[in-house]
């Protein structure tokens, strides 16, 4: 087998997105207390750095993956902290464990709302300091939404794919998909707001032993 390479790149946002909105954390006095004298958190629709690097973009190989390794034993972690889900966007392989914890000193409920048949919806309470709740999804779904109905501004979006070749862009907009076998692929990037239907922007690419590079530029919604 040829040596695997990494796919790297950067997602750049063109244009100025609409200003983010403050979350109504005071709707729950317990959440409100967490932010007494502190800045109120805002929505995270467009997390952009000074150079236009766009965070929270899910990037994955959409076509061309022939070998699909078993999911890693290491679980992916999602936390509830400050009455928000952290991180906002994450990736998960089908049948890989996802552990959802609650670091807040208050009650949340954890409610994944899949839309793909075979991925199970559930709604479970999670008190402060309770053991993490475990989830696993059988079918690919980009994005699978987690919400909290006690605090209806809390969301996390999970990109679930049936192989390990995915990444989420960081604060500077860069991403890295590691150990991709050489071959021809279609890579797709999906952002929650610029691609609300879940159909992202794609590129055809060839990955060699030295890896490959795929940058994307997308435009913010017109104001």
């Amino acid at each position, binding site marked *: 087998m040829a040596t695997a390479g990494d796919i790297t790149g950067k997602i750049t946002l063109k244009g100025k997105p609409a200003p983010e909105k403050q979350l109504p954390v005071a709707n729950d006095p317990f959440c409100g207390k967490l932010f007494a004298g502190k800045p109120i958190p805002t929505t995270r629709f467009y997390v952009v750095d000074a150079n236009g690097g766009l965070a929270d973009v899910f990037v994955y190989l959409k076509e061309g993956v022939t070998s699909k390794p078993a999911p890693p034993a290491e679980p992916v972690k999602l936390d509830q902290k400050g009455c928000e889900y952290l991180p906002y966007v994450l990736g998960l392989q089908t049948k890989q464990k996802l552990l959802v914890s609650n670091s807040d000193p208050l009650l949340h*409920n954890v409610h994944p709302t899949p839309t793909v048949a075979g991925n199970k919806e559930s709604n479970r309470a999670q008190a402060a300091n309770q053991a993490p709740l475990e989830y696993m999804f059988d079918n690919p779904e980009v994005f699978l939404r987690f919400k909290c109905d006690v605090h209806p501004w809390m969301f996390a979006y999970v990109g679930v794919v049936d192989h390990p070749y995915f990444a989420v862009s960081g604060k500077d907009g860069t991403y890295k998909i590691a150990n991709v076998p050489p071959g021809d692929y279609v890579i797709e990037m999906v952002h929650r707001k610029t691609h609300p239907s879940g159909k992202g922007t794609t590129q055809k690419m060839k990955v060699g032993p030295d890896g490959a590079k795929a940058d994307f530029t997308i435009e913010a919604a017109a104001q």
Partner: protein
Amino acid sequence: MTRSPDNPWLHRFAVLTAVSTLALIGIGGLVTSHGAGLAVPDWPTSYGYNMFLFPPSYWVGGILYEHTHRLFASFVGLLTTVLAVWLWIKEPRRWLRWAGVFAFFGVVFQGVLGGLRVTLLENSLGIVHAAIAQLFVVLVSLIALWTSRGRALAGASRGEGVVVSKGLLRLMVFGTLLIFLQLILGATMRHQHAGLAVPDFPLAYGKLWPAMDPASIEAYNRNRLDVFDPNPITAFQIGLHMIHRLGAFACLVLVGLAAWFSRARLGSQSTQAKLCMLWFVLVVAQAGLGAATVLSNKAADIATAHVVLGAASLVMGAILWAMGLPVAAPATQETECRARADGIPAISSGEPKAALSPN
């Protein structure tokens, strides 16, 4: 056991049940407007507690709305049970006794349905739950009407009610049914948790009829930056919203015509014409609240008022409809005497029926 159709306390209790049911629909509207339908994930317990012992310190965020809805629904269930038993013991009209029994089973079914919506995580059950709530408030309101003194005595004395012309009755029937369809459409939109499918009014995305092709839908969704990040809208949801607007216009026309004709045929001083005018005012206010719901970006209090006024409009239509129908009731000697004593005139079958006051 003495049974009499003239039982003022039973009537007052039926009115209390109807008003409480309307309030319950309002609390249900708050639940959906705040996206809190699943804030308590278990049922019939609340976070593992007996529902009635759930500590108030937990009543925060979405839990406050959902748990209050459950407790108030239990209260309405209790009222309905008492009403059904009371009717069964005291009411001479058999069909009305069975209406009470039907209401009892209706409220039980509705409660279980609400619980199943939570445990089965099924949005469509929420729509059915909302539709049955509307039918239920109509039923208990009609029980309140039928137990009213004037109605009971009119039925008992002559076996007939206030009969309006067939054309006017038809307008009332169509108006009421259309309002019910509008309420089901509204419930369908609310329970899809997609927020406002069309964010502007009186135009729709700047046009008389919005574009609904996939590229336009994608563009609409890209511009939706709501704190509560509702589900992306679809062309189907935009279509529903537009039909709801057209339906509102049709309701205004039908109810407006009903108000106009009832005034022309029955006279401006007749109770029925006055109630019909009140019905029209309710529907006009309801249309205004619908517009305000859009313009306020579905502010929870305005959207909830829209739900409550919709239910009140439906009840008013159903009451007017019922008042226009003949009352089939066996007269008892006691109520016949009572009617005479109260000065209700004896009218032969050939006399104008509208002369009876509907009260």
